[in-house]
């Protein structure tokens, strides 16, 4: 692997594959928290191993290789998540709808006659609220594909034409 090391500074610098998105770099850096600080450079990264790690040149190179491996894995995970976002949303929405139907039938069960409707509504409302508040990751309702609203003639228009809801990583990576 092509990299340059600075043992005194515990640093190793190398170029990364252009196919790797910035989001994957962030995810890999997150996974390396506690082992190394990660700095982005022009077209590459610089890792600074944790103090006291005592890594020699070979150790730093091995750290770089491991990080590179993590980058590839994170980029694949990013692509898989992005290309399947709508599939996952559809799957989970279907499951929740089926569950809601099941609950509707449940409510008529005389065994459960002592439950108050308000309490059931309250729990359902909280779960809905919590799900709406979730902002990271890829649950239903999240992501560019889901950020749509009613447009003219029944067509969905983006609700966020200026992309003010997009995280900076998404914008700068685009």
């Amino acid at each position: 692997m092509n990299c340059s090391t600075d043992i005194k500074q515990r640093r190793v610098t190398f170029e990364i594959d252009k196919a790797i998105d910035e989001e994957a770099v962030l995810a890999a850096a997150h996974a390396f928290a506690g082992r190394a600080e990660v700095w982005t450079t022009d077209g590459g990264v610089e890792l600074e191993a944790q103090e006291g790690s005592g890594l020699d040149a070979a150790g730093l190179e091995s750290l770089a290789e491991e990080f590179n491996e993590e980058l590839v894995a994170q980029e694949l995970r990013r692509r898989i998540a992005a290309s399947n976002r709508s599939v996952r949303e559809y799957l989970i929405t279907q499951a929740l709808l089926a569950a809601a139907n099941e609950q509707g039938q449940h409510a008529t069960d005389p065994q459960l006659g002592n439950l108050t409707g308000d309490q059931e509504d309250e729990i359902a409302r909280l779960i809905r609220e919590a799900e709406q508040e979730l902002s990271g990751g890829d649950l239903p309702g999240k992501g560019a594909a889901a950020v749509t609203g009613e447009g003219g003639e029944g067509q969905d228009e983006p609700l966020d034409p200026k992309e003010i809801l997009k995280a900076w990583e998404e914008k700068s990576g685009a």
Partner: protein
Amino acid sequence: MREAALAQALEKDLPESVGPVFFRKIGPRYLLTNDAGSHLWLEQDPFLSFLRGELEKETPLWNDLAAGGFLGNYMNFEVLGGRWRQRTKYLQEGAGLHLVALTRRNSQGSPYAARPAAGLDDHQFDMTLALARRLAKFIFDSPSSEITLELRGGDPLLNWDVLTFLARHASSFAGSVKRKLRIAAVSPLASLTDEQAAFLAEFKIAVAVPFDGPRDLHDSLRPDLEGGSGWERTLAGVARLRKAGVEPEGFFTVTRGALGRAPDVIAAYRDAGFDAIRVRAPWPAGDARSRWKEIGVGAAAYSEFYRELLDGVLALEAQGIPFREKGAASLLGKILLGTDCGAVEHRLLYGGGLGELAYDYNGDVYPSDEARALASADGDALFRMGSTDLGFANLVGHPTVRALAVASDLGGQPTCSRCAYKPYCGVSPVYNRAAQGSLQGRNPTNDRCGSYLGTFDALFERLRDEKTKTVFERWARAEEYRQGEPLPPFLSGGLL
């Protein structure tokens, strides 16, 4: 270069056939999982072919991938959605698990003992009968048709009048409002009498006991405050309870003194007559925090101990001696049976408040018992929500509960959202607060996450062996939580 093979998959866009899959490299091969809970092992070359859309159709491997829901263009949404629903049924249910701390008093020390420490005669730290009466009624305000009432402490047996009152009245309330009720208690059993054992048997109260295995380990972690041996008194209580017909289960917390001693721990459990153990990782809280260097265990050491213990237990099974690790059995239920194991800490959203409520001896209500125990061990009352006067709806809708749900959402946690163990795992913001000072935590340096990674790795690696898989299936069935029954006791996370 090690990553060279997989990097080939980055050369072009992913094909449609790559469905919503999580993956993790363990040793030379890849474990694939998905939200429906399917899992499949692939060697490196087939995995690469999968990522490049180069798999031959209708081969056994292709069929396995299709059946598991891994192929994006061959997904049966009805079946996969049904599996997801089955695994997350708890999202449709209310708080059915109620944990009540009857007293702070305890005759044995604990790494998480309450502060200030309550003397054995210090009845100011006992729940009163008047409060217990209100609680017995309150827990049936839960919309859940199945209720689990778990009595904790200190040692709940030391507040015996209140324990018997709650057991009697909760049972009679359950009968009159036609709810299913399960009662349980966690106690060191150090002061258990024959009469008490008979009562526990009569009311079918399940009992768990913190037991650290070898005598020296138990006595150093849970010394008897009256000068005897906590180990001896606990074992005497276990024997008394068995005589009354109640089989307790043992909790084992992995601490530094246990490292390298997994065989001793198993032997001590067997000598004490247990045919199972439930292994837990320690928390940096209370006394354990201030003594962390002496008793604390990080994720790597925990995982190593866990693998040793699991192999020791499996070696017994291979000799025809049934013995199981109950924590593994619960997780295996999620992996092998596709059901929810009933553990409120292994959910898409943390179950504190949504699946569980906890009550302190003085009536303070917390979203979970670990939140209550953190307040009593550390004086950190961040999660205290108020009292039952707030009413059920206001407690489960409390901003604290919402904050916990948002902080723990696995889809929002940067590492969890793409982790291969996401379908089976869960996050505890209460642990994160104790260990890392924030609700979200930071998984790469979080020992709870690291311990779960180690645990899941150990389970999945061993699942590749057919004989072990048969044993694991038996364990999973033995601990299976059936929908429509009260949540199993002793699964709420926390400090014991």
